[in-house]
Structure formats: structure tokens, C-alpha cells
């Protein structure tokens, strides 16, 4: 039968052994960190972004590298998912981008602070995360592109930066809003222009945000969607 001193030896032995292995692996993790996390790119701007990230408790809603809270989106790959112009516009006024939906605090960051955050996210995206977040294995594959679809390649830059985050053209883009290939069948120029200029005025409560677009930029997008180029 097991004696008390044998039980104690099991406890102490196991603890010391696994503790030593753990410390050894920690040392090795430090050794490998520069290559795996691109420490060379860890500039003061990245660190400044990191400080903004912690001082405002962003992980109280979001996750980063899967760590945080589950109230707001995972941000590890946010730069490639949304693109910098979209994020800049979003942080300035989060509710404008998702009217009537879940809210984010409006932080009134300066342009410089927003750039620091973006560099921080860029650095995070460069980390070797062992495959996280994984590509969704059951994501519906894009069907064959129908004849008469718009080509994303022809789109104005602002369209590529902002609109595709939610809408598809030519089978490419987001799935929040409807695909825009057949807009020209449903809208004329004044209606489409008015809609993009102020969606809430046309259809109160719509999820479509009022985007920060200059008049020429909006005109270019309308031209593109109506196929008038």
C-alpha cells in the first residue's frame, strides 16, 4: 500500500520535474521568439499601438490571437480582412459603419494613434501563429461568375477599400450586404447617388453606413456600378 512519504515524493518529484521542463521550454521560447514574431519589426510605433491596445482594454470585447472577450470580432488578421482605409474610417465613428447594431466605444483617437494601432495589428499579423485563425473549412465556394458581372479589378480604389468589405462584385467581396453586380438594373443615377450619400435618409435603420467619400469619389463609384465607364 502507498505510504504517505511515497505520496509526498510523488508530489514533489512530479512538480520539480515538470517545473524544470517548463522552464527549459520557456528559455527555448525566448530563443525562438525573434524569428517567429519578427522582433526586428517591433518598432516604437508598434509598441505605442500595443499600449493603446492595453490602456483601453480592447480585449475586454475583442479577441487578439484568440485571447480576450467574445463580444466583438477577432482582430488577428483584421488588416487583410478589412484593409487600412476601412479600419481608419471605422475607428473614427464605429456606430456609423454598423448603424443599429452592436456598439463600440467611440475613442476619439488622433490620426497618429490610429496609425500606431494599425502598425501594431500589422506586426501581430506577421506573427507565426501555428495556423490561427484557420480558414473556414466549410465556407461556401464562390459560384461561377455570371455573365454581365462587374469585375472588381476595374473598381475605383475607394470601392476596393471600403465597399467590398460588405458587398460582392464579380463573386469577390463580403457577404454582409447584397452583391452589387445588378445594381444598374435596380437603380438610376440620382437614386444610387442619394443612397450612397446618406443611406439613413433613404431607408432609416439600414445597416448600410454613411461612408466618408468625397463627391468625385462617390461619382466614380456610381459610374462604376452603373457600368458607365
Amino acid at each position, binding site marked *: 500500500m*502507498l*505510504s*504517505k512519504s511515497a*505520496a*509526498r515524493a*510523488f*508530489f514533489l518529484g*512530479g*512538480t520539480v520535474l*515538470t*517545473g524544470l521542463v*517548463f522552464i527549459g*521550454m520557456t528559455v*527555448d*521560447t525566448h530563443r*525562438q*521568439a525573434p524569428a*517567429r*514574431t519578427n*522582433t526586428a519589426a*517591433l518598432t516604437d510605433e508598434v*509598441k505605442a499601438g500595443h499600449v493603446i*491596445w*492595453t*490602456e*483601453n*482594454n*480592447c*480585449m*475586454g*470585447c475583442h479577441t*487578439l*490571437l*484568440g*485571447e*480576450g*472577450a*467574445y*463580444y*466583438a*470580432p477577432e482582430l488577428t488578421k483584421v488588416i487583410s480582412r478589412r484593409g487600412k482605409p476601412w479600419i481608419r474610417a471605422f475607428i473614427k465613428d464605429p456606430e456609423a459603419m*454598423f448603424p443599429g*447594431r*452592436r*456598439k463600440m*466605444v467611440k475613442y476619439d483617437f488622433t490620426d497618429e494613434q490610429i496609425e500606431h494601432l494599425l502598425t501594431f495589428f500589422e506586426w*501581430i499579423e506577421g*506573427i*507565426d*501563429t*501555428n495556423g*490561427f*485563425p484557420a480558414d*473556414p*473549412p*466549410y*465556407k*461556401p465556394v464562390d459560384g461561377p461568375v455570371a455573365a454581365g458581372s462587374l469585375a472588381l479589378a476595374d473598381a475605383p480604389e475607394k470601392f476596393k477599400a471600403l465597399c467590398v468589405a460588405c458587398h460582392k462584385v464579380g463573386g469577390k467581396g*463580403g*457577404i454582409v450586404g447584397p452583391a452589387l453586380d445588378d445594381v444598374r438594373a435596380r437603380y438610376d443615377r440620382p437614386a444610387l447617388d442619394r443612397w450612397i450619400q446618406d443611406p439613413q435618409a433613404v431607408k432609416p435603420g439600414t445597416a448600410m453606413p454613411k461612408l466618408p467619400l468625397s463627391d468625385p469619389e462617390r461619382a466614380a463609384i456610381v459610374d462604376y456600378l452603373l457600368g458607365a465607364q
Partner: protein
Amino acid sequence: MKFQSQKVAWLFFATSLVLLALQLVYGFIMGFAHMGYDGLHEWIPFNTARAVHTNLLVVWILSGFMGAAYYIIPEETDRELIAPKLAYVQWAALVIVGVIAIVGFHFNWWEGRKFLEIPRPLDFLVVVDVLLFIFLIGGTIWKGKRRTTTSLVLYFGLLMAALLYLPGMIDFRSHLFDSYYRWWVVHLWVEGVWELIMGGLVAFLLIKLTGVDREIIEKWLYVVVGFTFLSGILGTGHHYYYIGAPKYWLMVGGIFSALEPLAFLGMAMYGIAMARKGGRKHSNRLALVWTLGTCIMSFVGAGFLGFAHTLPQVNLYTHGTLVTAMHGHMAFWGAYGMLVFACMAYMLPELTGRPLFKHSKISEWAFWTSTIGMIAMTGAFAVAGVAQVYLERMSGMDFLDVQEAIEVHFFGLVLAASLFSLGIILFVVDFWRSGLPLGGITLKAEGLPAGGASDVGLEAPEAVG
């Protein structure tokens, strides 16, 4: 109650329950926000509610541990606490730090590091406070007439918990190591040294409640905590899968996490075996019910549900989703919440001389409603979490669309949480009815100079029930 200084435990228990009640309020705020009712967003945004909710959890559990330790150590060492007055100072300091931290969270004063949101200047106060606590407990053991395994395991657990708080205070340039050492605190607490504390507390309760020979209980205590550290230390690896640490953590974390349920299973079997073995029928049956409850629920919540999503192949999709919240709620309640309640259920009748917790119907209902409520909450989180994993992580649906699709499960969560809260309210009712400790909370009985907490003027209204 053999020693006057044990009474300080009551203050820590009362504090625990106040903080728990507040934690529930913030939990409801978040539950409603998830349902789409975020009317408090302007004043208490989600990240504030979340930080308050989790930090209150940590503090009320720690306060419960401290209270239990102040009760147990005099009894195990067979002497009064050294400097009981300082124990009241330590209590006051804990409350002050807690209040400042919680208020600060509402004014964007924090460092956003999950579970360790307390801002750095306050961290130092926490350290001073905990050092004082460790000094009082350690000094009492040092000067004690006897040294038991139970008190040493408990002390080692508390000491390690204090030391492990320090790596979380180092300022790293890299987010990788910020995260890496944050888990030294959080993981090595809850899946390491807190289990040691749990082992010590459970051993004490089993010795008192079952009448099984101390040597047998303490022998198996070593086996259980041995398994805890054997699996738990390298099990930290399950937090290192995707933060930029080397790939071997996937394998090491996966294997040792898979062993972690064994430690909890050991704890459950240990509790049940000792209760069966015990010939003596202790009059406080409910304390034994809570003790066995914590042994079993910690296995289900921390052991089994933790295992359910720590394998790297599963975790790749469940990491950072509501599945974590499912595991977290039952794990914390089962392993540590119920443990503090077990300590209170045993110790309060001894402290107050009123046997309410032994046999009152209200206390019995408190156990069942809170336990069933928590199981139902876990179910609601599970459905929401699994749906989120399949829709967002597997099928690539947009985050907000998924969140709106699973809102209805948060209605279920809020219902279950109401049942759970009812159980807590019932427990608080019996705590209230039990009144203050025998002779009130005063230091005069120990022949110490008047002052300190006696000036607060707390006296038991009806000293003997």
C-alpha cells in the same frame, strides 16, 4: 471555533458574498448586451462590465480563500493567529484596493490584460496586501504547536499564488511575452496552485466532516495535488498554441492538458471515497454536500469541459469563442466558487454558533438552485458557443451576423442565470440570519489593546442562537 482570532474569517466571507452579488449584476449587464439590449453602453460599456465581472470573481474567491485560511490555520497549528489586528488591516487593504480598482474600470483606468486588468500602481498594493497575509499565515504555522500536511499544502499554495502574481507585472515590449507571462499568473493559478489551495481546504473539510483518519486523507491529498502539478504546469501550453510560441507547445500543451482532468477526477473520487469511508456522521450534512459538490462540479466544469476544447485540433476553431465562456463559468463556480461556499457552510455555524447552514431548508435550496442554475447556464453557453464555432469559424459567416443569430441563446442564459442568482440570494439570506460571530467582532477578547476593528462597533445582535 477554538480560537478567538478565527473570527476574522467572517469578515472575509461577508466581503466575498458582497463582491459575488456585484459580480452577478455585471454578469446580467453582459448577458443583456449579448441579447442586444445594451442600454447601459454609454456608462458601462461591455469591456468595463467584463473587467468588473472577472476581477470581482478573482477577488471574491481570494477573499474566501483568505477567510478560510484564517479559520483553518489556528485550528491546524493549535494556536491563535500571530497579530490578529494585522489581519483586520489586511482585510481593509484588500477592500480598499478592490473598490479603487472597480471604480477605476468605469473611468478607463486599467491595463487591458484579461483577468489582470488592475492598473500597475494598484498591483503594488496587492503585493503588499498579499505579503502581509502570507506573513500572518506563515508566522502562525512557524510558531504553531504542530505542523500538519493540510496546513503546509494550503500555505504552499497561498505562497505560490502570491509569487506567481509577480511575472504578470513585468512590462514586456513584445505582445507575445506579455501574453506568455500573463498566463503564468492566470493559468498557473487556476490550474495549479489554486488547486493546491483547494486540496488543502477539501482535506481540512473532509477531516472534520467525515471523521476519516487524518493520515489517510493527507496521503491521498499528496497524490491528488501531485497529479495536479504533473499535468497542470506543462498544461500551460494550451495557452501557447497560437500566440507566436514554438510549435512544440501544440503537442506538449495538448498531451498534458489531456491529463488535467485526471487531477480533477482524482479530487472527485477522493472526496466521494472519504465520505463513504467516514463512519462518523457529522451534524453539518450540508457542508459535506457542498464539499462533494465542489469535487464533482470541478471535475465536470474544469476537467471534462476544459478537456473538451483544449486539444489543438479542436481549439483551432473554438479558441476565442463563447465555448471558452461555457467552460470558464462552470469551472470557476465548480472548483472555486462552491469550494468557498463549502468552507462557509462548515465554518459559519462554528463561528456564529447558529446551525442554520447545517439543516435549514433555505440552505438546501441554495445548493440545488445554484447548482442546477449553473448547469443550465453552461448549457446555454454551450449551444451559443457551438453555433458560433460552426457558423463563424467553420462556415465563414460574418461575426456580427452570427452574434445576432445566437442572441436567443442568451435569453436562455439569462433565465438560467436568474435561477443561479436565486440560489446565491438564498445562501446570503442564511448568512444574514446567522448573524455575527459569537461575541461579535472585537479584539478585546484576546486581551489586546482596544482599537482596530473593535472601534467599528460591530457587535453580534443576538450572540447565541
